[in-house]
């Protein structure tokens, strides 16, 4: 199994541990990644807030670069915003040839042409569709037995394009969590919005969404997610949400490959829990001791 890897900007900055753990886990599962050379930003939600054409041309530049690479490999994006932006180009140019023409006019400045021949896949799609839960289970050496894990999907890997999961009641993470030895925390917030950039532009609105998700997760041992924006909102604003709700949230928010790495016995350097802003000691003590296995 081989993919063109498009990490995106967050994974080089605030979501560094997502980048490292994704590469480590996929490597350990025998998946090869070739990083897209000279990739640029997908535009996130900012391009869409300023220019319709740029919101297509920016992600399209990366697809066009991928089209120049040998073979017919899929593009793998761990970030949900990157994934959606690339997927949107893939879907919309089929419906609107005029749009494709305009995109290509912009891509001319980079000597690139978009044909629309690459598929973009989300990391969760690859983990749940291409790699089976059985393969993951057989790589587990240190099952995280007894941990109640709340699967948090967020929005943009699920909607508006229903590609690999139910966009309202997502479940694709559950077999993976079970294969790691975890039990799935039942809740209905898995596909609800974390507030995204409202945490910066309208924090009084964003913080309520964050607190609502943390409230619903309160009996779980950790939340796992597959999006840098969701992870940041749920992790970084726990203090502020605690102040608002007059409570004390101390919920570990891990990236799915970090939890997988723990169960697969990968090293600290491959998982980098130290890069998370807050992983309470209480959570670390619940992890089975590697020596005991």
């Amino acid at each position, binding site marked *: 199994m081989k993919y063109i890897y498009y990490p995106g*900007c*967050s994974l*080089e*900055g*605030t979501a*560094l541990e997502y980048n490292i753990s994704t590469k480590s886990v996929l490597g350990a599962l025998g998946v090869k990644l070739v990083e897209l050379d000279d*990739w*640029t*930003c997908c*535009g*996130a*939600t*900012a*391009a*869409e*807030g*300023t*220019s*319709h*054409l*740029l*919101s297509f*041309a*920016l992600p399209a*530049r990366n697809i066009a670069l991928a089209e120049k690479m040998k073979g017919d490999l899929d593009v793998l994006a761990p970030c949900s915003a990157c994934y959606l932006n690339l997927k949107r180009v893939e879907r919309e140019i089929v419906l609107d040839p005029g749009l494709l023409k*305009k995109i290509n*006019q*912009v891509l*001319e*400045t*980079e000597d690139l042409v978009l044909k629309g021949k690459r598929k973009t896949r989300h990391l969760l799609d690859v983990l749940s569709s291409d790699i089976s839960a059985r393969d993951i289970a057989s790589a587990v050496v240190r099952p995280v037995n007894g941990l109640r894990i709340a699967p948090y999907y967020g*929005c*943009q890997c699920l*909607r*508006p394009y*229903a590609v690999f999961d139910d*966009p*309202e009641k997502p479940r694709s993470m559950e077999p993976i969590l079970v294969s790691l030895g975890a039990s799935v925390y039942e809740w209905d917030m898995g596909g*609800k*919005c974390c*507030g*995204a*950039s*409202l945490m*910066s*532009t*309208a*924090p*009084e*609105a*964003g913080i*309520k*969404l964050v607190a609502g998700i943390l409230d619903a997760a309160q009996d779980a041992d950790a939340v796992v997610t597959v999006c840098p924006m969701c992870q940041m909102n749920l992790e*970084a604003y726990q*203090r502020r949400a605690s102040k608002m709700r007059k409570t004390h949230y101390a919920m570990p928010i891990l990236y799915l490959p970090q939890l997988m790495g723990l169960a697969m016995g990968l090293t600290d350097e491959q998982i980098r829990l*130290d*890069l998370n*802003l807050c992983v309470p000691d209480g959570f670390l003590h619940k992890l089975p001791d590697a020596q005991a296995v």
Partner: protein
Amino acid sequence: MKPAFEAGRPHGASKNLEERLEPVRKMLLPCMQCGTCSGSCPNAWAMDFSPRHLWRLLLTRNGEEIFKSRTFVLCSTCYSCTLRCPRGLPLTDAMSMLKQAAAAENVRMHRRSVGFYKSFMESVRRHGRVREMEFMTLYFLSMKNPAIPLRFTPLGMRLMAKRKVSFEIPSRGMGRLDAFFRKAKAVEDQS
């Protein structure tokens, strides 16, 4: 006191805002006012008009009225309304088109959201990839309000301590995607 609402051009001459609304209106004509969008929106409680109400205003009022609402800047692009709309209307795109119009006309009332998106794009234009600290610095500079950076200082310090971001003075000079951005604007202005 400055008026809360101020379009990019003098009162009575904001033809551009009107022009920019035309494609959104056309898109929303089939709206039957069922309110599924409002019921699905996680931020409807914080909006002055519910999404359903905004679509109605859009079809019946002039542009300036629409841009006095904060509804569209409170859209967090979760796509719940788009997924559920029984008419299959791309409602999240409609919200984005309103954000684009507010950005193009620099509608003062929405400067927090417009400034945020524009600062992000500025960092992308300069380097091809967004540099998170540069982007936030540009954002703070554009807001000219010391309370905003202060609110972010604790988080910025925690991220710097983890060496995930580093302090950056915004760069000057040629940008990596200058030609790309210029061309996009030219093509967009033509159509």
